[in-house]
């Protein structure tokens, strides 16, 4: 078992090195020529079109950015750490707001078939709307770009939580609810002491899906609204067609997304139970 793990890890490293090696040598920059004419200088060198930067350049850039992640050179130029912090703040605010609504409403829908049938048409219509489609409307009504971005996160992360909560609550084993009823527990106590622990794994699955979606959406939302955040960072570098920075920020987005997912995965394993 252990040897398979070791060998797998080794193979992963070999793949990575191979991939980066081919990339590095495939994109060797032509050495700058001497004696450029004025026209060539104004064209930014005589070589052909710009190319994807080699991995060594990206790594160099990453070291440079990460060595000073919280610098502040004016309101439009802040370090990668600050930008990520802005994005995480927006995602968490929208996510917690969505949680505050999705969990109670999900319980209501899950426990009452009547409410489920009454609200289901609305949920089905609203759910598939791309969260970014809300942006122009949000900007117009809320009149604040920061809150609009948070609203977009809110609206995209509410649905998986709501549906999973409803599903989890509706599928709690009938016997357990009956036991609670024979003990003459009030509906509120039943919900908290019996249904909540029983439905918790399903609810957390919903939350995990939600935070994943929220992280995907925040990048696009910030590219649209600008100002701060990792999405703005990507946009600002795209503006300058600086691919090394773009690739570096893509990696950072991936790492943070993975950490968010891991955190919720950990929370999920805490509420798992065996029947």
């Amino acid at each position, binding site marked *: 078992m252990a040897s398979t793990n070791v060998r797998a890890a080794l193979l992963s490293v070999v793949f990575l090195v191979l991939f980066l090696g081919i990339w590095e040598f495939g994109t060797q920059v032509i050495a700058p020529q001497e004696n450029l004419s004025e026209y060539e200088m104004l064209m*930014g060198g005589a070589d052909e079109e*710009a190319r994807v930067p080699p991995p060594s350049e990206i790594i160099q850039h990453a070291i440079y950015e990460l060595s000073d992640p919280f610098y502040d050179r*004016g309101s439009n130029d802040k370090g990668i750490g600050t930008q990520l912090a802005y994005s995480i703040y927006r995602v968490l605010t929208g996510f917690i707001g969505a949680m505050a609504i999705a969990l109670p409403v999900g319980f209501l829908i899950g426990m009452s078939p009547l409410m489920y049938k009454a609200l289901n048409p609305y949920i089905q219509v609203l759910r598939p709307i791309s969260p970014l489609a809300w942006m122009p409307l949000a*900007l117009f009504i809320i*009149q604040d770009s920061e809150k609009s971005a948070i609203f977009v996160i809110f609206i995209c992360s509410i649905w998986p939580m709501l549906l999973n909560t409803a599903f989890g609550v509706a599928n709690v084993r009938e016997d357990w609810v009956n036991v609670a009823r024979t003990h003459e527990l009030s509906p509120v106590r039943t919900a908290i002491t019996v249904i909540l622990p029983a439905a918790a794994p399903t609810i957390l699955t919903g939350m995990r899906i939600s935070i994943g979606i929220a992280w995907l959406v925040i990048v696009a939302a910030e590219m649209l609204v*600008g100002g701060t955040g990792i999405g703005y960072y990507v946009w600002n570098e795209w503006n300058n067609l600086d691919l090394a920075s773009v690739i570096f920020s893509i990696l950072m987005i991936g790492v943070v997304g993975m950490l968010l997912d891991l955190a919720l995965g950990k929370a999920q394993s805490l509420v798992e139970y065996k029947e």
Partner: protein
Amino acid sequence: MTIKSLGNPFDGDQTLIHSKQCGCNDCTNARAGSDSELPIVSDQRQVQANDGPADSEAMLDRAIESAVVRSVFGHNDHSRRSFMKMMGAGTAAALVSSVFPLDKAKAAVKDSLGKLEKTKLNVGFVPITCATPIIMAHPLGFYERYGLDVNVSKTAGWAVARDKSLNGEYDASHMLTPMPLAMTMGAGSSAKRFIMPAVENINGQAIVLHVDHKDKRDPKDWKGFKFGVPFEYSMHNFLLRYYLAEHGVDPDKDVQIRVVPPPEMVANLRAGNLDGYLSPDPFNQRAVWEKVGFIHILTKDIWEGHPCCAFACSQQFASENPNTYGALLRAIIDATQYSQDADNRKEISEAIAPKNYLNQPVAVIQQVLTGRYADGLGEVQNVPDRIDFDPFPWHSMGVWILTQMKRWGYIEGDVDYQDIAEQVYVAGETRKVMEELGYTAPTETYKNHTIMGKTFDPKKPEEYVQSFDIRRS
């Protein structure tokens, strides 16, 4: 926060410029200090160490001293510093005030400005060279000179700039000259009265085509092309339509015109989503730099001296904060006039190229601002007025824009051209401020313009609209 360029102008050890690699206390602290968690206390110490002004009164005093001292040295910070080091601050201050009545100047400026209702402002800009005066006023200290602490905020596109202006997040913003007209009339947005006290740049745009179309220089060969313009209510859209229609190409039927935010133009041209575009610089020059496009024609050859971008704010902001509005307008007009001078263009290029502002290679910005550029066809061109800066908002320009909005069906029904242009383009205020600052302003607000050889008479707008064969109204 400290205001960096308001350092003591009589101190020879202190720079007033603060470039990206600046080594002064403030800058190194700002660079290193943002990760430290010792805010307020250390900040105050910094202020004291740098001997910066403490309140707004002192700030204004310092701004005036700074302006005077800077102008004595012709805005050359290097010679100011060596002079101050040689003389010592006290002697220098006494010397300057003996020839220039600093105290009186301070009192006069404060009287004429009145008390500022608001000193912290948010001004939006889209990262293009048209916004040069709005942007460079920040690193070069034009806002501070009038006691304003302005945050220039980069915006992804004009729809966002419009929405942030409408909802008051921006006190004032960089816009396209047709936008305040459209916003005031409620065309393509909710109606709110906007005023445009200053034009930013004239000329400075170009039609760029993909390198594959080097053999198709005649617009008649462009049928089926996909063109990009930055916004519907833009000079770019109206100039491209005009240019195409003059060559017999119907811009609505023969080609496709898409709205693409300027920063995305080059990427779209490379990907083949666009065959060409009429866009603001630096993205024309950037396409040449990236070797994906060439400059087909500069817009100055379509209409010499056409307006492009503007500085605008809501009527509400101007009437609620008259003194702040006045100070801001003075800063902008000052900055625009400063940008007009070809000698300053290199310095400006370096000041606005960093990430915080345009985020472009200096070499590209310089080609745009100095007008010595590679055209992508193998030639070096020398056109010093490729882009120019002139704040005066001609009413006749506003009328022309309205005729084109009418021509292409963006507005319908009877339009009172002059009335709207005069409401939005507040040329009277601009003239007053220009004269007060010592610049010459035109006495007229209407003049004839010549666009591709055809004369536009602002007194006969409706006849002008009817005179075109290709039109939608």
